[in-house]
């Protein structure tokens, strides 16, 4: 306990002195040099603490012309709860952990920091006070906004059940700020690309945007601030905003999401402050898919939206590519041709994942769900490759259609997907023709992309030597010239695929 102190006569005189003529009071003979005694001064910083986000809050003390400092914490009724400095030594800094002398954590509210500068006899030379706030701050949920593109998890409760993450769905939620002892951590990212979580509570969800979009984040502020003037800052997402429990402030990212298609993985820090005092910080991991734009499908409902299981690996594979349809589709073509781990059915040229559901080659239905699991194996044909390329490209915001080259034509030299050599007889010596061939086009066959095969790109595509030419934005007429050795080949059935 502090001893009762007598106040210095000088301190008692100080208000009168300050009220006096600022030029000074004549205390002696004008003719003699006079040195006034130094004025004792003390200041103390206020503070704020969220005991579940931080362990203590530093209190800065600036004192001059005294011997020792006493510093106490009192509640609003004036009851001293804690002595942080007992007046036995000079102190320039200390900290309060929000607990009284018995170690009991004090409730949310406003407290008084009382600092006194003492002389060697325990006489108070100067004093200062400041407010200290104990608060409980946090967010219960957050929702990304802006030009958000809905995402789909394609195995909601099994194949064919698409679980749509609507553009207005929360990005993360927690059930409660704390359990009374520890603060609830902001959720980790949901990592399963196929299956959605049963609930958003306790999960952090990815989101998708056009690469040049500027996302916003609306937070649901909660807690008990006890009247403290709390500000919330989202690092890199604009200025600090004053907040109160129940508020839903919106922060806007300081820059466009990305310069091109990519996966933006970053941790966003929420910093809570009272005045200049940082109360605590929370970190939210985020995964934002930056696509070219809205999906290229004609339909706009599920499943014709980006599948997480599709765009995640695709964007990682083509990251760094220029943000144009041509560049993205070309990169996807090469990725599928070289790295998808699939190979052409050189026995039958049969489709493993796509069926035509109308007459002839109309209404191709691509079983993307089965393909992602390689449920029917890793052998494919041209219909499959066209379906695969169209699905990935359309999901990333490019726009492809499939088209069918008919019919029964002999081949120049090609190198089929998964193959190692050029051949003009992909089915063996007696199989040197295609009954049909499926490719993709963004512009009604003016240009062609084909992940099924590479052409011989030199002046004579019908004979060696061979120069590998991936089919990336090749004019439709040139494509046929390089592909077809003999027979009539024309583009037909140009249309969008269906997806499941």
């Amino acid at each position, binding site marked *: 306990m502090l001893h009762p102190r007598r106040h210095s006569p000088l301190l008692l005189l100080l208000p009168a002195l300050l009220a006096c003529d600022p030029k000074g009071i004549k205390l002696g003979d004008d003719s003699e040099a006079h040195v006034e005694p130094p004025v004792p001064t003390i200041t103390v910083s206020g503070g704020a603490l969220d005991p579940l986000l931080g362990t203590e809050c530093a209190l800065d003390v600036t004192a001059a012309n005294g011997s020792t400092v006493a510093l106490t914490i009192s509640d609003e009724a004036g009851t001293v709860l804690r002595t942080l400095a007992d007046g036995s030594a000079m102190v320039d800094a200390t900290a309060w952990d929000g607990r009284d002398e018995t170690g009991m954590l004090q409730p949310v509210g406003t407290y008084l920091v009382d600092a006194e500068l003492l002389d060697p006899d325990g006489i108070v030379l100067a004093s200062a006070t400041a407010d200290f706030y104990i608060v409980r701050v946090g967010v219960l949920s957050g929702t990304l906004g802006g030009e958000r593109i809905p995402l*789909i998890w394609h195995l*909601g*409760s*099994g*194949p*064919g*059940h*698409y*679980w*749509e*993450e*609507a553009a207005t*769905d929360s990005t993360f939620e927690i059930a409660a700020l704390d359990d009374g002892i520890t603060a609830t951590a902001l959720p980790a990212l949901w990592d399963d690309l196929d299956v*959605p*979580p*049963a*609930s*958003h509570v306790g999960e952090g969800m990815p989101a998708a945007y056009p690469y040049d979009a500027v996302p916003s984040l609306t937070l649901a502020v909660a807690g008990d601030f006890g009247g403290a003037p709390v500000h919330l800052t989202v690092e890199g997402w604009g200025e600090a905003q004053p907040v109160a429990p129940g508020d839903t402030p919106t922060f806007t990212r300081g820059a466009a999401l990305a310069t091109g298609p990519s996966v933006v993985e970053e941790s966003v820090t929420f910093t809570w402050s009272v005045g200049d005092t940082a109360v605590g910080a929370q970190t939210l991991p985020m995964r934002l898919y930056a696509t070219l734009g809205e999906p290229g499908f004609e339909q706009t*409902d*599920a*499943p014709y939206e980006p599948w997480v299981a599709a765009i995640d690996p695709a964007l990682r594979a083509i990251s760094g590519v220029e943000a144009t349809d041509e560049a993205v589709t070309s990169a996807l073509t090469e990725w599928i041709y070289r790295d998808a781990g699939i190979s052409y*059915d050189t*026995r*039958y*040229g*049969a*489709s*493993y994942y*796509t*069926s*035509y*559901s*109308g*007459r*002839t*080659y109309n*209404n191709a*239905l691509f*079983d993307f*769900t*089965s393909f992602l699991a390689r*449920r*029917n*194996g890793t052998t494919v*044909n*041209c*219909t499959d490759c066209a379906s695969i390329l169209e699905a990935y490209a359309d999901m990333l915001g490019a726009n492809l259609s499939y088209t069918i080259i008919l019919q*029964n034509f002999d081949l120049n030299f090609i190198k089929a997907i998964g193959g190692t050599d050029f051949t003009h007889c992909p*089915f063996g010596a007696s*199989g040197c023709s*295609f*009954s*049909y*061939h499926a490719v993709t086009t963004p512009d009604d066959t003016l240009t062609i992309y084909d992940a099924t095969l590479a052409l011989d790109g030199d002046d004579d595509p019908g004979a060696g030597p061979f120069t590998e030419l991936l089919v990336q934005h090749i004019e439709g007429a040139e494509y046929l010239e390089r592909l077809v050795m003999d027979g009539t080949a024309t583009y037909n059935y140009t249309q969008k695929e269906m997806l*499941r």
Partner: protein
Amino acid sequence: MILHLLITTALAAGLHAGIPVHQRDLGEPDFQSAENGWTAPLASGTGFVRVYVGRNDAEAVDWFQRTRDGFSRLIPDYVFADQAAGDGTGVLLFRDGNVAVMVRSESNEALSIGQSLQARIVDGPPSFSFASLKRTDDGWTVVAPGAAFVQTRGGTSIPCGNFPAGVLADTQVGPPAIEQCMWTTRPDEVTIWDGFGRATVIK
């Protein structure tokens, strides 16, 4: 199975009901669409089958031809069932009445697998009216007793069964979960599959 064979024998001249979708030597069936039928991997992991049950022979003929057209290489005719193509080793495409099947076998057993599936074809009249979309005071429910799977498209559904919260843009579940689900706005399309792989579409 014995019952199925007896029915097959007794009603050989009529329409086929289909092939039971759950088979010991097949993996889990995957229902594609009413026009495409269902698929299942071979349990051995060496291939897969596609099965289509038409409402009549003509629909199966159409499926057979479309599927055959999907081969980049012309596959020859094959003598099996009512209509067949392939080589009987890696691939066999056949039609038996209103049922059409494609077998892909990496172990060159397409013919024996096809024969086995043909033997499991169950006869019986088409039964495409066992399900309905029912209006209730609160919305819409699917009534599908005996359904193997139900697919829906469109509509606004509320969480049910093991479905997560959120928008159920498209669902495919087996009963009884589907009958616990409700749509606050009418689904655009409901496809109900029975245990023989027949699909009924309600629009």
